């Protein structure tokens, strides 16, 4: 049963075996109550269960809420301390990745979302969620023309592979600052993940304004020895300008990225290589910011 109200005790066969896990990290102990976190599910969303698991392991209290229940008023966004838009193919992405979801966000939820961002409640968009956030305008200056987009991978194909990421030290996001410089290894799985800009100047402006939140690093990067991918495939898997893997909005509250840190929250998920680099760090920062 999908949990549509914030009632975390309702049984969900995909997450309730979590309680006494052995192959997982234990959920983060905290005296403070776990903040309720909304995970938005629209038709075609598919990494919702993993995102919920990551939030839970990071100490949050996730609820997967359907777009229709939000739209119809059965569930209200106001009861949640943070919002996560997970990956997938919302509405089939038939009009371009995230385009239709962006339209739904603008049409039905824009004020609530913009209000959440203004009040500092963190918003995280992953993959399709990032595409929708960006295309809805929620990551840009209000009412300014959009000069950044996510479009077809440079090789024209869907691409699934593990990449190295860095949480960019110069990023202005307050809640990412707790983990700035952190290296994360996790997979990408997308066909339209290339960050493209209207002109090269825009990429510099993003950098100078502290809006670049994540970058792709070279394959042999390690803590203390990282190099950016330099546009080289496959370290930069999609040809994104300036190796940008994720961005934040001008307030730093809303963050989006293409790769899937929720698919690396336990050591056994990693395909070899040195330990560490879990995506869990990102979810811990996210949940902490929601407290």
């Amino acid at each position: 049963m999908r949990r549509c109200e914030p009632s975390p005790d309702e049984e969900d066969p995909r997450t309730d075996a979590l309680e006494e896990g052995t192959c997982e990290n234990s959920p983060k102990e905290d005296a403070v109550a776990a903040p309720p976190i909304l995970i938005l599910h629209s038709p075609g969303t598919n990494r919702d269960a993993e995102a919920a698991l990551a939030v839970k392991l990071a100490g949050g209290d996730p609820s997967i809420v359907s777009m229709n229940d939000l739209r119809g008023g059965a569930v209200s966004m106001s009861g949640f301390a943070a919002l996560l838009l997970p990956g997938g193919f919302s509405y089939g992405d038939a009009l371009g990745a995230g385009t239709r979801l962006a339209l739904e966000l603008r049409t039905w939820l824009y004020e609530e979302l913009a209000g959440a961002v203004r009040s500092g409640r963190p918003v995280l968009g992953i993959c399709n969620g990032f595409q929708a956030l960006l295309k809805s305008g929620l990551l840009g200056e209000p009412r300014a023309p959009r000069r950044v987009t996510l479009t077809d991978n440079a090789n024209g194909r869907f691409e699934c592979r593990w990449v190295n990421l860095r949480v960019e030290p110069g990023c202005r996001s307050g809640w990412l600052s707790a983990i700035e410089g952190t290296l994360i290894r996790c997979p990408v799985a997308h066909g339209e993940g290339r960050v493209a800009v209207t002109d090269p100047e825009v990429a510099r402006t993003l950098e100078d304004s502290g809006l670049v939140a994540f970058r792709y690093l070279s394959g042999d990067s390690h803590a203390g020895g990282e190099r950016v991918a330099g546009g080289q495939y496959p370290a930069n898997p999609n040809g994104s300008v300036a190796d940008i893997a994720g961005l934040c909005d001008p307030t730093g509250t809303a963050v989006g990225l293409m790769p899937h840190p929720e698919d690396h929250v336990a050591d056994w998920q990693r395909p070899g290589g040195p330990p560490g680099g879990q995506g869990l760090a990102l979810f811990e920062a996210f949940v902490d910011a929601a407290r």
Partner: protein
Amino acid sequence: MPTNHPGKRSGGDSGVPVRIQVTSSDDPRAGRIVEGARHLGVSGLVACRVSRVHYLQGDLSADDIDRLCREVLADPVVDQLVVGPPETTPHPAVEVAPRPGVTDTEARELERAAAALGLPPVRASTARRYELIGDLDGAAVSAVSRRLLANDTVEQFSLDSIPPSFDTPATAGARVESVGLSGLAEADLMSLSRERLLSLDLAEMRAIQEHFGREGRDPTDAELETLAQTWSEHCMHKTFRARVRLEHIGADGSVTVAHYDGLLAALRTVTEELDPPWLRSAFDDNAGIVAFDDDFDLAFKVETHNHPSALEPFGGANTGIGGVVRDVMGVSARPIACTDVLCFGPPDLADRDLPPGVLHPRRVRDGVVAGIGDYGNKLGLPTVNGAVLYDEGYIANPLVYCGALGLLPSGSHPTDPGVGDRIIAIGGRTGRDGIHGATFSSAGMDEATAEQAGTVVQIGDPITEKGCIEVVEEARDLRLYHAITDCGAGGFSSAVGEMGEHLGAEVDLAGAPLKYEGLEPWEIWLSEAQERMVMAVPPGDVETLRRLCDRHDVEMTDLGSFTGTGRLVVRHGETPVVDLPMDFLHGGVPRREMVGRWADPAPAPGRVPDADPARLVLDLLSHPTVASKEAIVRTYDHEVRGGTVGRPFVGVRADGPGDGAVLKPLGTWGHDMAVALAVGINPRIGRLDPWAMALHAIDEAVRNLVAVGADPGRVALLDNFCWGDPTKPDRLGSLVRAVEGCLEGARRYRMPFISGKDSLFNEFAGEAIPGTLLISALGLVPDLHWTIGSALTRTGHDLWLVGEPSERLGGSLVDDLLGIGDRLVPPAVEDPLRRYLAVHRLIAEGSVTAAHDVSDGGVAAAVAEMAVGGRLGVDVTVPAPGESVVVALTNEAPGRLLLESPRARRDRIATRLGSLGRRIGGVTAAPYIRIRVAGPVAGLEPVTIELDAAVRAFTGRGRSPDGRP
């Protein structure tokens, strides 16, 4: 946004649709088209401009159109927009659009987006425009259009602007026709069967004639079609249920005769003999079910979608995945992973060798791969395991095996529809698509098939199916239904007919939601439109189910109820459509008596030519069947659901081959147990000895499972038989021999078959494919931390080889490559479990750091693959079964595994393996693969291959421009 907006326009008042053309800068598809044209021999195409074209019909103002463009159709950063007729261009332009009635999700989503913007209702239609830049004559434009840009089966194309085709209503339906059967002679019965594409034989037509003779009337069109679908080979498995006599002629001329009272019954009997405690359901339902842990079961099913994929590769494979995923939903499981095994003709086939009416293998491959990726990715399922084979036998008839794995709480699958339960359909709308799919796949193909088969081939709509997955899981957990099945072959007629077999059912088709008007009742009843499930729901639970459907944007329809009358009664409003007794529908088909004949080929060892062994190993590594499948598999999301432990790629650069998949299902993280999947397939052996093919395929699947850490004591098997026309004794003889091999294999390996499927009539113009058995194996890894890969891990480690070589090369890749013509197949493994249990114990205790199965290309290819994955050198000495170095390196004797292990474990491994294996050398820092040969030819210079050369050969990097295998 750069636009060319010719002032005020309206799409409404004049009824003239507005045309909107969107072009992305740097569209990566353009380069692929140029490259594809080069493969067609069209070298004049230097560039291509790709645009999306949308037609909108409705009462739209210029502002409305502007909003749609801005908010939905065009991205302000990368897109250019033309509203109105296309700009004139000096280059030839081709526009391609789906044929009317073919699923067009883009148009549908555009209509919905317009509604979300609050615009007046619009109808949308889409096309693609290709401006071909370069030096092309008319013939070249035509070749590129027909062979690259459009597939005539589902698309139409036009030079320059294509007129929009909105789904146009056909003539009004609700006509029920009576088909005159009484008094028809044999020849007339058979011509009726042919004309209506019923694929029924004379005995079956007679049984129907007699039944309606007793009822004193003629059948309706819908009744005849219902019987034809239910009795089709595809649905009824008439060959696997027939009484079969096999004449087996030995190489010495001796004849042995065997009788089978049903091949399916024989497979089932062995499963019942073995009857392991973890078996939940075998052969009874849409998928086989085994226990996973204390709380959950696993459901596994593999299907084929060969004929549709031959005609429309994308749509065929797309709906192949969709169909097998619904099979798993049909046992109440949440789908959690997909598999695919693909058999194509050679990718470099010369055009002159391509039969007329057949798509080139490269086009088939690219379309199939895109179709599988599209559907699996959009369902959020990792496509984790499979194989790709290339063989001339599949040029006109590719094989597309699609598998799905599901997870369900133990005991949560109800199979007990009750009288009074409502018949509820959920999911996609019904159209004319897919009519006659079951009977179509029960006949051979020829040159004209593509033209006749327009309605059979479909494009999938994965997002509708994704909604169904959510609804079914939630409905299952709330126990809202008493029975569930998918709408596959035969559509509603099969789903309702099977679910109501012991009850009877009454259906009104008038309420079925249709994609477009004008369907006749029999078409609604028989349509195999995709993405539909049928459930038996108690009346009191219907509204709860409706709420779940609303939440997930899934359409739901109440079609009628189960009655208890024992009759299948279908109406369209007041018009009677079908009235058949269930026992005749399900029990009336005459049982077939069939004869198969198999003659063992005369034993003839081939002569092994002299070949430079190092060159030969590189040729094997770069053979498309062996070489890396990265260009294919990376387009599949194999990580979604976060449970992929054993991956398709392994090693330091993630480009070594994985032997099997290991998955940790979400929701079971409370313990460390995981699921393993692997496959075995070898049509080359099947040509010589189908019995041996079965044992070799089982062995390959099992050793792949063992290599990744699965327990060989808990493995379940699936069979998928793809063969030619079984009414021809030689085809049936080979099929029965393969079944006999499966029976022997299940006993010898103590592994039950839990599900299977046969796809017969894989013939083109009378030529059959090589009989091809796919074995899919489902195992358990007791602790996911035991999962290892095939890539070498560390200099100084030992390399061990389990199993013995064979002097026989029959069915091996090297035999094929060098044209040796050996007809002797290496003997099957006599006592397989002993060795695999020994290896499993070594893996379980942590003594093994990498393991790899020895298959296509023999021990040399396997050693080289391990070296490539680890980017480390090796120095090994392999046993020689005779005097030939080539045979020692490349023979494909079954039962062999390579193990890498730390030196400190040497004694322990030697003790555990005893005579089952031997240490053959070790891992080196030097970047060379050195293979020496022991035995009679010892003392020769080692075969030496530079590691870099092996990497290039295997990965294809630096070999072909797009890195494709």
